[in-house]
């Protein structure tokens, strides 16, 4: 009796332990063979073969529709916007799902990833073998790191062999974007660079009504800009009345590199070579460009003269405090995304200003910062945006590529960017689109649904003229004058980034975040330093930055440049 009981306890406990440990122990071991399905993608030997048996092999009919339903998961950014719909389940995702099922017999499931921490979250998903079949990120180094561990599919052979079933993707992204990241020595391709249709980056904005009130012209030099800030400060009671103590002549955020870029770029020598840009340019804030420090020094001077918002460094990314100060009308000038005050319809800074301050109150883009050659140079990025990659866990590379193709198709992306006629847009007589701000189930959670049109950032209607007109129409409730000026200035005298493709830079592996943190820390500390301590703090921070991996990256980049371009200093 006793033995039987003991035995049964033992039996129960072992089954329990086995069952539970079974669950855990098979989890960490992912596919033992990383990416066989990719490199040995089904293919017939020569391209001249009739495509039928190949399609047959892929399980597709002649319309590129799968005979059996395939399932894929797709990453989607979640912005948590006010009044927004569920990013993974709404009117637009339904449009995509229906379309993919209809055209390719592919069932799509969306995986929401928070927009502002996308890098961290996709890391976690990758590490846990949970990354969506179609993943995207702005950080190529993340992809490279996982690729080195065997965690990413090599897209090179797949996109090449299946060119014929992906016409829209090839047509829209073009060879340049598709092969942008192709490793020059190994030929591997870990990611597709999606298209940045509008190279607009940032602008310098000032309060137009304040300029008028103080009888000032829009500043065209650094000196004029500075005097304007001083004038704002000195005339706080004229401009703000009883709120005079709230006056902020110039506001910025902890992300100084972005939020002072036009100012700092004007200190960079005009004759910078492509080589310099490549070697010093791995920090996307241009922070390593020659003479950058002088720009920060100017900001430091302004800060110490009380011209800069005192609390700027305290608020984290995504915090709305600064926006609210702009909306309340306390901020005189700032540098930010090229259309920052005008975006977001009714909730825009522009609309709020007009409601809270008055119909004259508005921000207007200005161009005060010229460089040593008198050129208002702006460093623009290349025509690339997010990077699409397939993790090694993707068992449906063809279905996934068909998705990328589908979302690149003109008809589909135009619908996603503009929505339904009469609800989110109207057609103007000239053929251009005008967006209408909407709420409820057809609200767009991101401007022009950028989060769904994963291969496009910015409008592209297939017709440049219509596109430009539609961009200007895209800001409901904002006088198109403001948009036109902003659109013109933001790329004026711009220098578009080129693709110096030299393959992987090993020193960058895993360094991105740590160096970014160091850059922000150094810039913030330097701006708030007292004038006499500025040099010491900046130089110490720079030394730390370079010593913690920055210099190694510069050296490796310089060597890679020499290897591929020799003595040339400019790219073709």
């Amino acid at each position, binding site marked *: 009796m006793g033995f039987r009981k003991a035995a049964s306890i033992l039996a129960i406990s072992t089954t329990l332990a086995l069952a539970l440990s079974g669950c855990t122990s098979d989890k960490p071991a992912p596919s033992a063979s990383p990416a066989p399905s990719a490199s040995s993608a089904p293919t017939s030997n020569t391209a001249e073969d009739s495509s039928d048996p190949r399609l047959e092999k892929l399980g597709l009919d002649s319309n590129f529709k799968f005979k059996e339903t395939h399932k894929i998961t797709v990453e989607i950014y979640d912005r948590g916007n006010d009044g927004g719909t569920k990013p993974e389940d709404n009117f637009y995702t339904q449009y995509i799902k229906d379309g993919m099922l209809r055209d390719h017999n592919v069932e799509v499931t969306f995986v929401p990833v928070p927009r502002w921490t996308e890098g961290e979250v996709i890391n976690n998903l990758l590490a846990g073998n949970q990354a969506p079949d179609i993943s995207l990120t702005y950080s190529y180094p993340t992809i490279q790191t996982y690729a080195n561990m065997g965690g990413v599919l090599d897209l090179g052979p797949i996109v090449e062999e299946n060119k014929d079933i992906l016409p829209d993707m090839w047509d829209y992204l073009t060879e340049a974007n598709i092969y942008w990241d192709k490793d020059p020595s190994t030929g591997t391709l870990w990611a597709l660079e999606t298209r940045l249709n509008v190279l607009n980056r940032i602008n310098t904005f000032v309060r137009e009504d304040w300029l008028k009130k103080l009888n000032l012209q829009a500043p065209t030099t650094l000196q004029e800009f500075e005097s304007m800030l001083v004038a704002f400060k000195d005339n706080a009671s004229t401009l703000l009345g009883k709120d005079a103590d709230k006056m902020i002549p110039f506001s910025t955020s902890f992300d100084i590199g972005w939020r002072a870029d036009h100012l700092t770029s004007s200190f960079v020598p005009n004759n910078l070579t492509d080589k310099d840009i490549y070697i010093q340019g791995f920090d996307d804030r241009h922070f390593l460009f020659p003479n950058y420090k002088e720009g920060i020094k100017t900001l430091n001077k302004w800060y110490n003269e009380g011209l800069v918002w005192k609390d700027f*460094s305290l608020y984290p990314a995504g915090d709305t405090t600064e926006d609210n100060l702009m909306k309340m009308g306390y901020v005189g000038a700032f540098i930010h995304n090229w259309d920052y005050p005008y975006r977001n319809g009714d909730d825009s800074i522009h609309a709020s200003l007009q409601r809270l301050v008055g119909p004259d109150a508005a921000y207007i883009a200005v161009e005060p910062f010229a460089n040593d050659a008198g050129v208002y140079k702006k460093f623009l990025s290349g025509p690339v945006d997010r990077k699409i990659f397939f993790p090694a866990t993707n068992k449906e590379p063809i279905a996934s590529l068909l998705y990328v193709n589908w979302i690149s198709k003109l008809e589909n992306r135009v619908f996603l960017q503009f929505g339904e006629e009469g609800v989110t847009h109207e057609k103007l007589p000239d053929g251009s689109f005008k967006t209408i701000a909407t709420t409820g189930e057809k609200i767009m959670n991101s401007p022009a649904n950028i989060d769904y049109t994963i291969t496009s950032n910015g409008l592209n209607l297939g017709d440049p003229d219509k596109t430009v007109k539609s961009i200007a129409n895209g800001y409901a409730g904002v006088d198109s004058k403001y948009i036109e000026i902003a659109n013109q200035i933001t790329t004026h005298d711009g220098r578009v980034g080129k693709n110096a493709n030299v393959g992987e830079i090993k020193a960058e592996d895993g360094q991105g*975040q740590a160096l970014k943190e160091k850059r922000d820390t150094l810039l913030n500390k330097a701006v708030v330093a007292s004038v006499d301590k500025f040099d010491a703090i900046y130089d110490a921070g720079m030394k730390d930055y370079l010593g913690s991996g920055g210099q190694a990256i510069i050296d490796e980049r310089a060597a890679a440049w020499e290897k591929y371009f020799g003595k040339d200093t400019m790219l073709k």
Partner: protein
Amino acid sequence: MEITNKSKSLSYIKRYWILYLMMLLPLAFFIIFRYIPMGYIQIAFKNYSIVKSPWEMGWAANHGFEYFIKAFSNRDFLYALRNTILLNFLDLLLGFPAPIILAILLNELAFKRFKKFTQTVVYMPHFLSWVIISGLALQLFAPTNGLVNIMINKMGFASIPFLNEPAYWVVTYIFLGIWQSCGWNTIIYLAAIAGINPELYEASAVDGASRLRKIWHITLPGIRPTIIVLLILSLGHILGSDFERPYALRNTLVTEVSDVISIFVYNNGIRGLQFSLTTAVGLFQSVVGVIFLFGANALAKKSGERGIW
């Protein structure tokens, strides 16, 4: 002799088998979620790869200690180590006695209702997450827009940089920590005080002892074992670090004091993908924690206390 012992324990199991059976569940929990994952400690000694199980990963250089050497030659890690010790030590110094004092104060309150009310009020902050507290801190302590500083300015003084200067930030950090957890931590002390024999208080009242005397000679000695146990446990955490609290409260101007080990691990591991390095750091942290725990326990035992085991 042995046989009787054996049969004794067998009959014991026979009689209470249900209890033993129930023990299996927590045991299974600890084995599965606490012991099996320890196998992954080896990542600290190996070159991490996402597609291999830890058993298949190759050994790191320097007999597997490459990542420990890397960590200790990393300036940021050494800063993080210093900050962790500094902040935890200050927390211990100021934060540890606070709930004891508060518990004694609460215990001395005569009106039952008022005591209950006060207790509830001081518990409350415990339920706020650090993200919310940091939001409150910004609203209150920001140099120009913070309520406290606006008041200070109106009184004619200059703003106090509660959040944007390292030394002040440390004070704010410790203060907010005490504010958040002090009330909650009184619970265990109040329970211990409730367990003190009331006859002792009555006898001392007969002897004419004052309130302070009673606290000093009866209450404090009465809760001494509890204090010691909690002290040992908190010493085990001297290198452990919260993530949420420093991460939510930090900003770029105070990184030299705010970046503790957990933030180092987050930035270099989760965001920087250097998993082997950060596992090594985590392992180091745990080993030091265990050493402190044993050390404190041995000391307590030496000075005549019971310790924790």
